[in-house]
């Protein structure tokens, strides 16, 4: 039968001497007590060694005992100062009364003094006792040097224990002796070293062949490790971007600071439209004004006031000062229309994923700053049927199988449509996309003569559906523990 490393080490230790105390093995081999114990039990069970137990008492000084060992016992000091005799009150009032009481008590108990009529006198034993060292003093003296181990409790040891001057611990020592069988077995043992780590040194020296590697408990816990990671919202944004790139859309960027002209006017959003009121958008005090292309401004103004071919326009007085005001971009349509103005010829497919700003107090349903995703398709002969077709295609690519449409309204599209997708998790239809064909009043001033399909994805809503969020603020969750807990869910 194989020996455990610890067992082999104990056997080898004993091979030299035949017998040894267990603590000698511990010290000699540098092994834990429990490890030696386990090895000894295993070896004894197989008859390789016998174990004799020896009970002993280990004595050590308490703090009070240490003081008396250094200064002498109080009764010795009182006896020495007693002379021919003193009155009790005199003895008790010198030094600590408590200590004097103890000293007097012990002198009487030991029969070294007698008390008569308030007078304390030494007895003949008392006089004799002054010359020699008492056994308990002897023991205290030894204890001052080292712990004392006794096979049994002597009367003086018992006396000091009761006086609280000595602490007694019982101890069992085990004497290990090799049996005949053990001697034979020990002769065969070849020790193998046990190591925890495979080191460079072990590897190159080849010594790894001689050692034994410590076995680990694989169920034991280890400190957690977290990978660096992309933000969950960013992951969904990338997914949407990849889907659009795969469909051949070209990505463009919007601007955080935009003029009211590009943000609203160029989209044929009337200057007194409710969405343009002060409490809907962030207007800026710095920068407060922007530069606009003058001829385009004139054409857009005319479209607002009097319309374009076949249109009546909004019929109000257009104010170019309003157009020049700087705002925080509230819709990425501003970017697509800017692009359209400089690329009026088909074919064209572009999209923009960027942040927009709204005049909102942040709560579980509203953010003041969030992502929008918007795109346009321009080509000859595109119709509303293509509008619906592209929406279906986009939503299918994003993984939404069931899509339905209903009428919608946006100031810059006609016909307009809203798309809903079926959310199996919630068991309901969720509005995710608004779209429509850009109005002629928007297109003509830009010099565009072809139909343009435009759509905007409620990106926040898609991210929330993907990640299973209820509170919109979690889109910008930056709690490291939460981010690490997210894993790769939601794809």
């Amino acid at each position, binding site marked *: 039968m194989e020996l455990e490393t610890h067992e082999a080490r104990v056997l080898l230790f004993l091979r030299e001497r035949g017998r040894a105390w267990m603590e000698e093995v511990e010290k000699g081999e540098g092994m834990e007590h429990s490890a030696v114990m386990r090895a000894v039990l295993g070896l004894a069970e197989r008859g390789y060694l016998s174990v004799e137990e020896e009970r002993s008492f280990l004595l050590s000084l308490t703090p009070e005992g240490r003081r008396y060992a250094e200064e002498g016992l109080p009764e010795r000091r009182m006896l020495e100062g007693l002379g021919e005799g003193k009155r009790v009150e005199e003895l008790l009032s010198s030094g600590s009364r408590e200590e004097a009481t103890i000293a007097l008590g012990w002198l009487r108990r030991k029969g070294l003094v007698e008390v008569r009529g308030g007078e304390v006198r030494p007895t003949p034993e008392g006089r004799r006792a002054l010359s020699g060292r008492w056994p308990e003093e002897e023991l205290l003296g030894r204890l001052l040097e080292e712990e004392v181990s006794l096979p049994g409790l002597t009367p003086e040891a018992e006396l000091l224990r009761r006086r609280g001057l000595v602490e007694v611990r019982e101890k069992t020592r085990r004497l290990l002796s090799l049996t005949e069988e053990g001697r034979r077995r020990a002769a065969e043992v070849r020790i193998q070293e046990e190591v925890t780590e495979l080191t460079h040194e072990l590897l190159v020296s080849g010594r790894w062949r001689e050692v034994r590697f410590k076995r680990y408990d694989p169920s034991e816990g280890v400190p957690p490790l977290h*990978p*660096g*990671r*992309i*933000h969950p*919202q960013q992951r969904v944004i990338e997914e949407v971007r990849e889907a659009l*790139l795969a469909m*051949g*859309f*070209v*990505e463009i*960027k919007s601007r*955080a*600071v*935009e*003029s009211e002209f590009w943000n609203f006017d160029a989209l044929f959003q009337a200057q*007194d439209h*409710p969405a343009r009121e002060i409490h809907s958008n*962030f*207007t*800026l*005090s*710095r*920068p407060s004004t*922007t530069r606009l292309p003058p001829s385009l401004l004139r054409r857009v103004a005319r479209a607002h006031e009097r319309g374009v071919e076949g249109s*009546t326009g*909004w019929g*109000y007085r257009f104010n170019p000062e309003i157009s020049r005001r700087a705002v925080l971009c509230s819709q990425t349509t501003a970017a697509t229309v800017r692009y359209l103005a400089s690329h009026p010829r088909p*074919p*064209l*497919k*572009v999209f923009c994923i960027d942040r927009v*700003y709204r005049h*909102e107090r942040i709560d579980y349903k509203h953010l*003041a*700053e969030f992502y929008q995703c918007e795109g346009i398709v*321009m080509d000859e*002969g595109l*119709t*509303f*049927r*293509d509008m619906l*077709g*592209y*929406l*279906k295609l986009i939503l299918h690519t994003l993984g939404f199988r069931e899509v339905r*449409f*209903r*009428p*919608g*309204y946006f100031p810059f599209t*006609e*016909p307009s449509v809203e798309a809903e997708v079926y959310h199996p998790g919630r068991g309901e239809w969720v509005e995710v996309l608004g779209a429509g*064909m850009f109005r002629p*009043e928007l297109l003509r001033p830009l010099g565009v003569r072809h139909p343009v399909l435009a759509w905007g994805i409620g990106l926040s809503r898609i991210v929330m559906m993907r990640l299973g969020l209820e509170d919109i603020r979690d889109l*910008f969750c*930056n*709690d490291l*523990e939460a981010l*690490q807990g997210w894993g790769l869910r939601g794809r």
Partner: protein
Amino acid sequence: MPTLSVSYEDFCSLLGERRGKEELCRKLALMGVEAEVSGEELRMEILHNRPDLLSPEGVARALRGFLGKGGGLPTYSLSPSGITVRVDPSVRGVRPFIAAGVVRGVRLSGEVVASLMQTQEKLHEFLGRRRKGSIGVYDLDTVEPPFTYTTVEPEGISFVPLDFGESLTPAQILRLHPKGREYGWILEGKRRYPLLVDRRGRVLSLPPIINSEETRVTEKTTSLFIDVTGEREREVQLGLVLMMTSLAERGFSLQSVRIRYPNRSVETPSLRPRRLELGEEEVREVLGLELGARRIASLLRRMGYGVEVRGKRLRVLAPPFRADLLHPVDLVEDVAIAYGYDRIPPRVKGVNTVGRKAWVEELSDRVRLVMVGLGFTEVMTYTLTNPGINFEMMRTKGEAVEIANPVSQELTILRTWLLPSLLQVLRSNKKHPLPQRIFEVGNVVLLDEGSETGAVERRRLGACVAGRPAGWSHVKAVVEAVLREFGIRPEVRAVEHPSFLEGRVAEFLWRGRRLGMAGEVHPEVLLHFELEHPVASLELEVEALGGEELKEGKGEG
């Protein structure tokens, strides 16, 4: 979107038939009105361009046609009431226009009164929260025509306003009455206030704020007088038409009122339909559906139009309340709605273009890859911030894009750098174990007079290490690792910056261009953000990492 609430029973009686609740909602959705029934209440969301649907009566009128009951152009009989409103010249600089009408044979239950008030409130929203038009509805029998639309000095008269126990002057109403407080801003800066009075000088209302208590409409009212005042005649007329045509749906009869301006007079409301033209061709071009003129005509009739077919062309009469029709394309949308969005077959015409990621996004993705590889976690923070965080807590000063109408003092500017946002993130993560390694690839916005909009955006990489190893040598190693990936071997130059420990901050340059900086964050800054462990940070210009040679073959979006 505006919402309407009506009892399901009342709506069915307006509709003239009972429909199942679910079917009703589905039909309304196809017409563009999102609806749901909860208990006995029908709630509807109305699209912004259809003020004619801002009353249950209006929705029922449209739905009847949509369902194929009735349809065509609604007709109204309008007789002159003989009542006049004289307009005093003093209203010109205050609130120049008024339109008015009379509704007779009125029977009002409590429910109908509530519905009427709801319609009035929704129309007020539509009319720019009363600025463009405000509607007054009075019990005609409590006053005596003719009426005068005039002005008065703020303390020039007193009357008991609606829902108030005592008589107040206009100035007091603006100060004390809830409606005065809510709408007083419309009269701000005016030296005289508009006033509508009857023959004996009794006050009907102080437009656009409040009516007098005396003229209150109750369940006993049998005749209504309605006025709309405002700054533009078009909206004023429209408001009156919208209000009166919905009341007509309840079977009440309408009468007109003569408005005498100093130099002209008009009879209001005008319920004449508008004339529009549409051709088969336009419908096909926009919708991609092959529909003949007759089919288009019948679809338009279902949407409440009067239509005459002339070969391939259609002469369309639109009801006076359809203010949203600017262009024939608006009629085309109604053709599509009547045809049914759910029945239009989708199609995808191939438009051959090649997809291309924006260059700055391409660079950003590569930067993210490096940072994740270095064991950093990405965070996403807002560009909206305030000068306290962006400058003062960082021990710096500076200028930024500044919001004129902030929602809160927390968000008043756009950030000019990423580090303050990252320190905020570290602050909110104090309870979690160290080290913390975070980064953001995000925008900052800088004022720039040379730019068209006065500001430019920069894409930046920002990163922070909190706890060990958070020293200069570590962030320098991170910066160099990132730059090495882009083939950049930067020049490092020691600088002084108040946000960083002296002697532990430097700039990185390459070919004369500043790439960014890194350093150990100043202890005072750490304390401002309530941080108790050292933080080292870096901030780099992402766009500076992608030189032209990297971009080759990528093209530009």
